[in-house]
């Protein structure tokens, strides 16, 4: 079996033209990951620039209202640029710089990864080009402006469904044509090896901090950790240091869109099957002939027909559960958290909040849940207003 497998998943299903690029990336990463100098630089960026460690906040009002398990929120929304994406991007940009690359390219769905990449490029004096589905540039116009403000070029992708999967395809095509000076800063735990491992390692800071923080606050591990899953980077980051702690339930919340019994869904584990796409073997939403399905979710960040290979593996071995959350449930949770705790979560993160709203009341009061709030919801306000029938201008 080839490199970078998680059970049967993962691998490197990419054109020959890119093989040396991913091999070079893996070698560079292996040199850097245990290098004290690299890690000191990255930690300094995390702490002084991105504002880490992010808070673990006891959501007392939410806990009281739901009347069950004690709920903590891991506040990745408080990071610089407003989401967990910055963790991965600072790691990859630093790595790219060590490799002598001068240009970053990235795909983005909701725009959070694009903004994070544009930010790191500005900070490190690198050129930056972001590919974004044209449909998403409309849904997330503010983020397009932010990227441009940060000095990045934003290329609207009009092929296919003009959403995240097409942005990934286009970024891959661009990388194939320009490798020497360019690093593809992939935004999730997906794509060909070594990306799923590199991105997971940079995001694992989330669960490392949760563990320390919950032990300080409660003196014990949580009973459940939950996070939303598109490609799955904030979820794997939240799960990683708990994988060996079998008492901790790991719950990934997929976007069901209008429901997993409809075609308008993006719930990969719940509706997809094994396939090979975007460099990896994993589960994908697809038709009987292997054509990739045009998925749908209100959340541009979860609107992806696949899932990272490590999640596919955690599902196979039963270590993590993957549940589906509809648009309606996510929007209700978005509003509920805003009113209850004064925290507006990203619509992506609201999928995890929605599942907590379902299960917390059924759990005993001495149980503990941690929900990762992967990002802030300012970017979503106009879209949610539209969902509720109110037209506001961004």
């Amino acid at each position, binding site marked *: 079996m080839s490199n970078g497998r998680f059970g049967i998943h993962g691998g490197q299903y990419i054109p020959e*033209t890119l093989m*040396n690029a991913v091999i070079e990336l893996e070698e560079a990463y292996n040199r850097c990951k245990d290098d004290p100098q690299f890690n000191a630089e990255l930690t300094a960026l995390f702490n002084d620039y991105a504002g880490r460690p992010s808070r673990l906040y006891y959501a007392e009002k939410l806990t009281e209202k739901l009347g069950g398990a004690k709920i903590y929120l891991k506040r990745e929304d408080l990071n610089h640029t407003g989401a967990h994406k910055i963790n991965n991007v600072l790691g990859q940009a630093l790595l790219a710089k060590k490799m002598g690359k001068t240009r970053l390219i990235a795909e983005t769905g909701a725009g959070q990864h694009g903004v994070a990449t544009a930010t790191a490029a500005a900070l490190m004096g690198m050129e930056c080009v972001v590919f974004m589905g044209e449909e998403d540039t409309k849904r997330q116009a503010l983020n397009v402006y932010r990227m441009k403000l940060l000095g990045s070029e934003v290329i609207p992708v009009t092929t296919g469904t003009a959403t995240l999967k097409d942005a990934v*395809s286009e970024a891959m095509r661009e990388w194939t044509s320009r490798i020497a000076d360019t690093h593809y800063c992939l935004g999730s735990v997906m794509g060909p090896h070594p990306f799923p491992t590199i991105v997971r390692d940079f995001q694992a800071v989330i669960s490392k901090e949760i563990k320390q923080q919950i032990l300080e606050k409660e003196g014990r591990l949580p009973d459940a950790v939950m996070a939303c899953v598109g490609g799955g980077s904030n979820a794997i980051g939240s799960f990683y240091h708990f994988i060996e702690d079998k008492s901790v339930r790991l719950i990934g919340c997929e976007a069901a869109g209008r429901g997993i019994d409809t075609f308008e869904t993006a719930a990969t584990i719940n509706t997809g099957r094994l396939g090979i796409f975007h460099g990896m073997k994993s589960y994908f939403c697809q038709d009987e002939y292997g*054509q990739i399905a045009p998925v749908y979710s209100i959340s541009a960040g979860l609107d992806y027909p696949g899932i990272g290979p490590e999640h596919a593996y955690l599902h196979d071995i039963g270590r993590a559960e993957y549940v589906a959350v509809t648009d309606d449930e996510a929007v209700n949770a978005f509003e509920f958290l805003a009113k209850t705790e004064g925290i507006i979560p990203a619509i992506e993160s609201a999928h995890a909040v929605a599942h907590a709203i379902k299960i917390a009341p059924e759990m005993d009061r001495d149980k503990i849940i941690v929900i990762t709030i992967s990002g802030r919801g300012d970017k979503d306000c106009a879209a949610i207003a539209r969902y509720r029938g109110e037209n506001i201008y961004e």
Partner: protein
Amino acid sequence: MSNIAKAFENGKAFIPFITCGDPDLETTGNIVREMVKNGASLIELGIPFSDPTAEGPVIQEANIRALSGGVTTDKIFDFVKELRKDIRTPFVFMTYANVVFSYGTEKFLTKCEEVGIDGIILPDVPFEEKEDFAPACRAHNIDFISMIAPTSEQRIEMIAKEAEGFIYIVSSLGVTGVRSEIKTDIAAITAAVRKHTKTPCAIGFGISTPEQAAKMAALSDGAIVGSAIVKLAAKYGKDAAPHIGEYVGQMTAALK
């Protein structure tokens, strides 16, 4: 000897590509017959995929036209079976890993052998991942075609040593599509390949004019043309066959 080797027996090979079902299989059938009539040595038949990550805009759009026309893998198998009643020219499928994997690799290759396919090209399956497909290909006498790119460098030896059918040399960085100039040092790549194998090499990506084809074929055993042909298919739709035939005729003449 595989049927593919025969394509390289009579001088330089000209290898045209067409997306099956663009805009319908009847048109593709007419195009294939015109290609044969005008001297194509081997024909690459594309099975469309929804998200062809190695293709430029021209072939991406052909994939969309074909899929919206309702073509499926099963219909393409039936179509090839029909063509094989009177056409002996070697056929190679060009598609993406998921089309084969999702159909069931074993089932897919059994069908390939049944209908008379000689080889398969999967641009998203590099050397490291070919064990998913190559053993099943061997079991069904289908050549698994390997690709070598301008970035392959020290990988050339391992790829060339295990190559079957022919080696697809990618002329340039990037995706498929017409290029005004090919800057890669192709001669150095073919020289490196020939140190390790007798398997013929054909060059593809970016070739559109008879001059380019002659130049590339002089450096190797043949030239592959996709986007330039698919452009004609897009322009003339159901009436594309004679136009493509004429083009293939010019290209094969340039290789004589």
